[in-house]
């Protein structure tokens, strides 16, 4: 479980997160919704401590990681996987090397076992046979799937998705949504999806968190979100059209 208390983050004069309190429960998929620039991606990066937080506390399975150093965070990060918005595959490595990266870095698995695990994960994301390709030879949707295979190869307790369907056509986006759902069901991991894609949210979410101006505006299930009469929820649902 990830517990966040009074988390704040500023960039210069702009406050992105304002004393945010939120809990991500174990084994559930939580979707964080919000307009662009409301701090959704920043929230994930703060949990992974890819950037420093200004104030507040972050607890991972009861362990307060707020004051952890970079080297202390390494142990926490090993239990997490992240799919970045632009996939962030290592462009000088092949698909196989990308997916095998964490296994080679952090485990003593034999090359044979690594090969088997990589093939299993590539098969899971329906990308078998692409092992020798470079990321530049793949489409955006394929890169996302490889990035997902890379994020789940160590079978982490937590998997984060940063805008997983942004920039994809509706069919590919749905494939990614189905994969997110399957990953959660298959691994039992705690999943956090950051998006502004309502289709995606309705498909994968077990819990919705809507951010507005760095604060939580709404928290609940998808059904509750759909039925909510709160003004910003209605505006967000309707895509900004007058309601």
């Amino acid at each position, binding site marked *: 479980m990830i517990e966040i208390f009074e988390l704040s983050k500023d960039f210069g004069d702009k406050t992105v997160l304002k004393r945010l309190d939120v809990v991500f429960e174990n084994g559930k998929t939580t979707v964080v919704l919000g307009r662009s620039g409301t701090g959704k991606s920043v929230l994930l990066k703060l949990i992974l401590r890819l950037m420093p937080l200004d104030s507040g506390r972050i607890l991972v399975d009861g362990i307060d990681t707020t004051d952890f150093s970079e*080297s202390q965070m390494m142990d926490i*990060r090993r239990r997490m996987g*992240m799919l970045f918005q632009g996939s962030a*595959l290592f462009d000088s490595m092949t698909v196989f090397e990308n997916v095998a990266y*964490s296994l080679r*870095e952090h485990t003593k698995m034999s090359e044979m076992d690594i090969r088997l695990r990589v093939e299993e994960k590539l098969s899971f994301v329906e990308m078998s046979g692409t092992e020798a390709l470079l990321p530049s030879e793949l489409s955006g949707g394929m890169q996302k799937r490889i990035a997902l295979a*890379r994020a789940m190869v160590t079978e982490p307790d937590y998997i984060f998705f940063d805008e997983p369907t942004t920039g994809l056509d509706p069919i590919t986006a749905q494939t990614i949504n189905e994969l997110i759902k399957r990953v959660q069901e298959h691994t039992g991991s705690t999943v956090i999806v950051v998006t502004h894609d309502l289709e995606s949210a309705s498909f994968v979410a077990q819990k919705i968190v809507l951010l507005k101006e760095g604060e939580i505006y709404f928290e609940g299930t998808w059904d509750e979100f759909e039925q909510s009469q709160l003004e910003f929820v209605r505006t967000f649902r309707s895509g900004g059209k007058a309601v």
Partner: protein
Amino acid sequence: MKIYDILIETKAGEFLTHLYKYAMFLGTVIKAAARGPYYFNEVLEQLYQIGYRSLSIVSLTGIFTGMVMAFQTGMEMSRFGAKSYIGTVVALSLVRELGPVLTALVVAGRVGAGITAELGSMKVTDQIDAMRAMATDPYKKLVLTRIVALLIMMPLLVAVADVLGILGGLLIATANLNVGYELYKTTVLEALLMDDLVSGLIKPVVFAGLIGTIGCFLGMSTTGGTKGVGSSTTLSVVLSSISIFVFNFVMTKIFFLISGPL
């Protein structure tokens, strides 16, 4: 607006801010070096990329510099009947100054720029963050390995440039200026003292440190997409080149103070 904010916006304030960030970067690199894991295979790969693949351009730089030096000095010295000192002039100027400085400039352009562009591209496409998210320290895997490879390869590259430069000088001396092989060899060997060889090897190590740390620092702090990568890469070559000239002067001065004028 606070006085601190006003000061920071001046050119001097901006420069000091960058200097502070560079110092912090050096601190992080030293901390990364103090504790494992160490990436020996990555260092080997960088030795190949940085060292072996720079060999041809460094060789050409050395040989043509030696040839030009011999030709220019030989022509002038023959007017005073001092042609026999060509070996001395070529050897001393190459080993003390031209070898280390020109090799460093070539490496700054080829390798330093490459490091900045590579790390900068990784930074702006979130690959550095992805590496950190996968519990790998990019300072150990990307930065330290490149700096170590540069520190190892630079003295070797300078040695190659020096030797080929002296041989280039020999070629011109014997073919164009009628200076015999034996005379050239004797004057070269008599001219070079241990102090020259030591300074000729210390300088490349310092230059390697400058090129490596400046290249990596600018790469790791790149922002602003592909335009930012371009700016960082240009800045890397400019700053490395300037610091090579400045540090070369300072080190030459120090070496002369230590060993005394000849």
